[in-house]
């Protein structure tokens, strides 16, 4: 934490609704990914290739067992999948959980988007055209390749692109999911994805992107520190401002919000 100077003030960060949507989404999405893996690992799909590459990566079906695993740990490959995470042979269970919790994922996501629309909060999230270039600069500065630019507003440009992108990712998730869930009834949607096999491809890889988002997100939150994390729990962050008679100075830019 940086050294506190100036006057401490509570700054409103996240509305209550957004905090609830955020924290409900976490376990629900975890269950969706887990049950999705139960479905995915039910059967290895053979050498289906797309764009010259296996449609689903081989290492994902049978990742090599890490050397540090104790000898008693079951790492045999039962059929063609590994039993180590006991995710195989549980297809019926995976489908039951997936087709139950899809409702919570969809409704929570819908509520979040509607809230953004009607509360006006979308303004702090939706990137402008210039944001995309600036987002790159933010990413480079996060990697300590270029000096950090001065930030203003609740989110920097990289965050705007990421948080809007992840909403779109969720939408592709839902649509591609429905395209594989009802490929006969929703034949037009399945066709839009390029058919059943391609819809599966989209569903799988958007999940991978979502997991990548999650990893970066958690890393950035850890980097930004407790005060920022607390903002998503309490709705407030503590900031320190110079005491001045003049109009209040802009908030200090040093702290990175994630």
């Amino acid at each position, binding site marked *: 934490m940086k050294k506190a100077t100036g006057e*401490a*003030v*509570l700054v409103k960060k996240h509305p209550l609704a957004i905090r609830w949507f955020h*924290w409900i989404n976490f*376990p629900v999405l975890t*269950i969706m990914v887990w049950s999705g893996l139960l*479905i*995915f690992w*039910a*059967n290895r*799909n*053979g050498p*289906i290739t797309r764009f010259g590459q296996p449609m689903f990566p081989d290492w994902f079906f049978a990742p090599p067992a890490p050397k540090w695993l104790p000898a008693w740990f079951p790492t045999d490959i039962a059929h063609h999948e590994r039993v180590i995470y006991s995710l195989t042979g549980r*297809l*019926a*269970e995976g*489908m*039951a*959980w997936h*087709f*139950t919790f899809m*409702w919570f994922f969809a409704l929570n996501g819908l509520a979040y988007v509607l809230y953004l629309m009607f509360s006006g909060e979308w303004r702090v999230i939706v990137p402008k055209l210039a944001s995309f270039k600036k987002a790159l600069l933010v990413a480079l500065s996060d990697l300590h390749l270029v000096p950090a630019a001065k930030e203003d507003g609740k989110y920097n440009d990289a965050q705007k692109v990421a948080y809007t992108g992840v909403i779109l990712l969720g939408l592709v998730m839902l649509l591609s999911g429905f395209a594989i*869930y*009802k*490929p*006969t*009834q*929703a*034949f037009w949607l*399945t*066709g839009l994805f390029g*058919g*059943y*096999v391609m819809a*599966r491809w989209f569903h799988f890889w958007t999940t991978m992107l979502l997991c990548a988002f999650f990893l970066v997100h958690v890393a950035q939150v850890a980097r930004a520190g407790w005060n920022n994390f*607390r903002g998503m*729990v*309490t*709705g*407030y*962050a*503590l900031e320190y401002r110079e005491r001045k008679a003049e109009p209040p100075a802009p908030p200090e830019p040093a702290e990175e919000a994630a």
Partner: protein
Amino acid sequence: MSDWTPEEQIRRLSRRGLLWGAGAAVVAYGTLHWLDNSATEDGMGWPFKRVLGLNEKLAGLYLSNRSHAQEFPAGDAREPKVNGPYGLESEIDVANWRLQVVGAAEGLAVTLAELQALPVVDMVTELRCIEGWSCVVHWTGCRLRDFVAKYPPKDRKIDVERLETLPPYIGMATPDGEYFVGLDMASAVHPQTLLCWAMNGEPLTQGHGAPLRLVIPAKYGVKNIKRIGTITYATERPKDFWASDPEGYDWFAGL
């Protein structure tokens, strides 16, 4: 409250937030534990069966026989792998095979030649296994709806265009009864639901369900029963191999 410094306020808010978080975690864990340990019905926890039932009802609202599974050029057809040996263990005498129809005229047994006298349909659709793989296959057979019209359930004035005139379910089983599926009537009379005797231009092999199998693109592969021995008109939901204890799959399995 107003006497408190911002530091005290945020500490208070954090404490409240963490208590909420702890409470929510306990409720979430309790819910998941309860779900995971709920009494099973046909091999699956009953809360899941309820939701799957609701999903099925909801699907009934948008389910329409005007929605057709995508059809492909015949050149896209491939040989699907032989999957699911249940009910196919014994050799079958194709020449003496008859299709028993339960719930129709007394003692009705239909020959393959009689089925082949119904309008013949060629269809190239994707067979979609519940385990994820899919394969485009060229099928030849007759429509189940034409079969229902020709061999109707007894004591009923039926019209295959009007679901309410038909019994709500159809069950099918292999001759030895080892494999069996249940179908809702709407899916059964879908125009792409076929009783097939040929695959990719050749008569069905034993492994692919000779002499007659069901092809129903509106359902997962598990419902596409091979070597049909009996067709039953039913008022109760027929038993289904994969939706029975302990397998626990969704009975509807609609696509």
